[in-house]
């Protein structure tokens, strides 16, 4: 394929993606008077007098952000140790785990909701009707994406040997997890988290059918009375998701250069000697390596 053809294809694909976004921006910049452009609709969102009409929308944003955080935490807390355990101890089970994690992508959201509705009857009775409970359903829907992101990193790293090296150097399992596994899988974990956030922010069907308010259901509702606000929030959500994708890319680039930003789990010279949860054989100071 020639360079010119490649550029042409890239331009066409770019246009396909860009045109709707440009149209959305153009729409939000239209002046309320009907002629010319301005920032009136953007400013209106921050207008305290109109706070009431957007209250539902802000609630939706807050709920979606809460759900994004809870879902990401839930998925990572469950999936990372499970995948690491399967990878290190039961590698033959990886295919089973993969199947289980990929299944949700084959189930349409509407079917999922039909199954989830009675489950949520119980969830509400046990855990209340808080926003966060929707994260249980979202956790299932994002499993395929999170699994893939983690698996890519897991298969690229020699985790078994690194873990064994850490163990022979005196690291207990919790410390192996925090000082070796998590930093080694940092890119996969971040990618899984960001994709989870992006999926949750764009989710509509489950929230709508379970009568919950999130960003997407609120946007639909607001669009009926104020289409400008709906488009502005849709644009902001797009921008947020785009930023997350950029961050994933940056983390990947940083890793390939070997200049990872410090993370809470990583060992850095500045972090000092953290308290060891498990005593190890003392390292005598008198017999120095000379």
């Amino acid at each position, binding site marked *: 394929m020639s360079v010119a053809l490649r550029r042409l294809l890239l331009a066409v694909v770019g246009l396909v993606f860009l045109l709707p976004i440009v149209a959305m921006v153009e729409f939000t910049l239209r002046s309320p008077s009907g002629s010319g452009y301005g920032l009136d609709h953007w400013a209106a969102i921050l207008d305290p007098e109109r706070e009431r009409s957007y209250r539902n929308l802000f609630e939706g944003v807050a709920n979606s952000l809460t759900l994004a955080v809870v879902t990401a935490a839930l998925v990572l807390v469950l999936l990372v140790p499970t995948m690491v355990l399967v990878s290190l101890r039961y590698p033959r089970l990886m295919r089973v785990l993969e199947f289980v994690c990929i299944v949700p992508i084959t189930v349409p959201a509407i079917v999922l909701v039909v199954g989830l509705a009675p489950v949520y009857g119980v969830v509400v009775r046990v855990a209340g009707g808080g926003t966060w409970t929707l994260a249980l359903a979202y956790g299932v829907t994002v499993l395929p994406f999170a699994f893939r992101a983690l698996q890519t990193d897991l298969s690229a790293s020699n985790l078994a040997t690194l873990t064994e090296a850490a*163990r022979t150097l*005196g690291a207990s399992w919790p410390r192996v997890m925090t000082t070796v596994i998590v930093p080694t899988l940092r890119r996969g974990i971040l990618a899984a988290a960001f994709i989870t956030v992006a999926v949750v922010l764009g989710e509509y069907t489950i929230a709508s059918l379970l009568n919950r308010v999130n960003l997407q259901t609120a946007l639909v509702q607001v669009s009926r009375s104020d289409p400008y606000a709906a488009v502005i929030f849709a644009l902001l959500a797009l921008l947020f998701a785009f930023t997350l994708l950029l961050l994933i890319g940056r983390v990947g680039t940083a890793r390939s250069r070997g200049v990872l930003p410090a993370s809470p789990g990583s060992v850095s010279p500045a972090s000092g000697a953290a308290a060891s949860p498990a005593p190890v054989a003392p390292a005598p100071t008198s017999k120095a390596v000379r």
Partner: protein
Amino acid sequence: MTSSPPLAPASRADAAAARGAGASVELRSVVKQYSGHTALNGVDLTLRPGELVAVLGPSGCGKTTALRALAGLERVTAGSILVDGVDVVDVPTHRRDVGMVFQSYSLFPHLTVRQNVEFGLRMRSVDRRERGARAREALELVGLASLGERYAHQLSGGQQQRVALARALVTQPRVLLLDEPLSALDAKVRVQLRDEIRRIQHELSITTMFVTHDQEEALAIADRVAVMRDGRIEQVGTPESLYSAPETGFVAQFVGVSNRIPGEAAGGRARIAGAELPVVGTPADGPVWVLVRPENIALADVGIPGVVEAVMFLGPVCRSTVRLADGTVVEVQHRVEERRPVVTTVHLRFAAEAVAVLPRD
């Protein structure tokens, strides 16, 4: 046929033990079974304090499993592992106080060289200043003090293994375990690092188990060599004794190159192709395979006739393949100047060195 004890007195081994600041290690009847497969089938092996023992054997013989069992990375099915007389079978890996270097470069990719070396000290809550000083010393020991701020992927394979060695040594472990640390390196670096490992091990007098499938490496580096086969120790001894007095055919074949020549054993001597040679041990009389090293066969003016079939140039020496009149093919090692063209008739003479023999059905 089997096992290490009783330990034969050996000058290199004794010297290592005499240096000994390291721990003594003893594997007693260690068995490791996986589902339907026995990886270790009653391994007995003793490492004296400060001694370097190479565990040599073909792929799948259980040598790495034995090392991993000593590290605590494999739980043994039966038997005991004693370090300084204390059974450590139930002690988890992170409390065994061993240093280990793996075949695949196992540096933590998110840490710099210095942070990698400091890792074991961090796990032991050594304070920052001492950590830094000891990591520097360890890096100086392996000649990489100037690369402390690099990441693993910025180093060559040899450098990475040096860092892994420094990381394993910095905690001053009781036992150093080396799992084919040179296998992934190119030939020249392999020899350099091999010598370096020997120098450092000698300096620190640390009890070391070195697993390898490369017999040249094992013979060059070890105080004693344990040859393994099918989950058992076939023979333990100094490199010299293994080479010159193999107790089994497997050892004779695996350690160095041996010709397998049909012959007859009688009265403690072996008769082959018109020559009579002293025998290692006291084999039963009858037909045997006689194992003769190529360097113990010489080209001569008179002797057993044969025809040169091939000549291999090995640098300082040549190795010729010669077919004898009875059809037996033997390898003969000789000086380069003695090289004869292919199809030339030559005469062979066997050196009067004791040879190992195997029963022949």
